[in-house]
Structures are given as structure tokens and as C-alpha cells.
């Protein structure tokens, strides 16, 4: 693929900042605006920029979908741990009288899982479109 030099140069400048920004949004999902879905979509967009730079997609679709399924299985495992510790379904795994910094890790973990799942889902979507366009 021969993309224009302007697109490639701008993508090279933008790619690390976009990746850092997506991780920032996911990690600060519970203290400021943002969250898992938004950060994951930004991360998938940075993969699209990576495709513009090198002109090929390095990940195979089978592997991405497999990781996506494993992350989806990990989500209810994290959610249902709260039933063993607090006795309630679908809530924080740490009891309510724990300090704020410890209870926050649950939100951080779920945001990371959802962000990774959304990012991998959108990346596999992009891979499907790229392979359709090339064939």
C-alpha cells in the first residue's frame, strides 16, 4: 500500500501520544471523565494509525478473537468474586468500610478489562475490513 507521505508522518508523530492518552483515559476512568469503552476505542484507533505507517497488519484475526473470548470470560469471574466477599451480586468485591484507595482497584480492574476487550474487538473489526479491502 502506498499512502501519502503526509499521512505517514503525521501518524508517526501522533501514535505514541494516542496510545498514552488511551491508557490515561482507561486508568483514570473512575476519577475523571472517560472509562473503559472510550479508552479502548482510542487504543483501536491508534492501531489503525500503526497500519497506515507500516502498511500491513501484524495480528491475525483468529488470535484476536481468541483473546477477546478469554477477556470476556475473565469479566464475570472478576464480577462474581464480590459474591464471595460481600454476599451481593454485581457489586464491589471489597466491603464498604474499606479505605478508598483499596476499593478503587476494583473499578480500575474492570475498566482495564472492558478497555482491553473493546480495543481488541475494534482491532479485529479493522482487520476484517482491511482483509476485505485487500482481497
Amino acid at each position, binding site marked *: 500500500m502506498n499512502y501519502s507521505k503526509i499521512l505517514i508522518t503525521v501518524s508517526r508523530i501522533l501514535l505514541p501520544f494516542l496510545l498514552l492518552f488511551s491508557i490515561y483515559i482507561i486508568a483514570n*476512568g*473512575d*476519577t*475523571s*471523565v*472517560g*472509562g473503559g469503552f472510550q479508552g479502548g476505542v482510542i487504543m483501536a484507533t491508534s492501531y489503525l494509525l500503526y497500519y497506515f505507517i507500516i502498511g500491513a497488519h501484524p495480528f491475525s*484475526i*483468529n488470535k484476536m*478473537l481468541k483473546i*477477546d*473470548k478469554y477477556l*470476556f470470560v475473565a*469479566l*464475570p469471574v472478576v*464480577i462474581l468474586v464480590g459474591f464471595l466477599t460481600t454476599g451481593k451480586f*454485581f*457489586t*464491589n468485591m471489597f466491603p*464498604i468500610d474499606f479505605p*478508598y484507595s483499596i*476499593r*478503587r482497584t476494583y*473499578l480500575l480492574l*474492570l*475498566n482495564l478489562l*472492558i478497555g482491553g*476487550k*473493546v480495543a481488541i*474487538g*475494534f482491532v*479485529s*473489526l479493522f482487520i*476484517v*475490513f482491511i*482483509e*476485505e479491502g485487500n482481497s
Partner: protein
Amino acid sequence: MKKIRSIAIAIIIIYMLSQIMWHINGDSLEYNTSSHAYYVENGLEETSSKNLVTAIYLDYRLFDSFFEASILLVAVTGIAFMAIKDEDLL
């Protein structure tokens, strides 16, 4: 006969929509604001999230956001299967 029936149905639908639009406008203060007040008051203590949106989608409505993630998985797998006819994907 058919024409009269369709006109009657159209009039009924327009009447219902106008009733809905008449009752839902920004001036009326008849909304139920109890859940809003509850979230604003107790959101930080109960979920330890400073962002109220995160407090709702990761604690109060976690059931909803879990199945939202499952919908994304099914949609992506379905699109990939439709585009690439490979049985190993599923």
C-alpha cells in the same frame, strides 16, 4: 373501506404522539428525581468512584454493562464470520 380505516389509524397515531409530546416537555417538573438525588448523595461513599458515570456503569448498573460487552463480542465475531468464511473463528 380500507382507506377510511387507514385514515382512522393515522389519526389515532397522530393523536397519541401529540399527547406524548404534550406531556413530555421541558417545563414540567413532574419527573421522578429520587434516583438522581440518591446517586448524587450516596455515589461516592457506596462505590468509591469520583466519576458518577463510572459509579453507575460499574456498580449500580454493572449487569447492563456486562451484557453490553457480550453484545460487542457477538457482533465482532459475527461480522468476522460473515466476512471470512472460516469455521475455526467460531
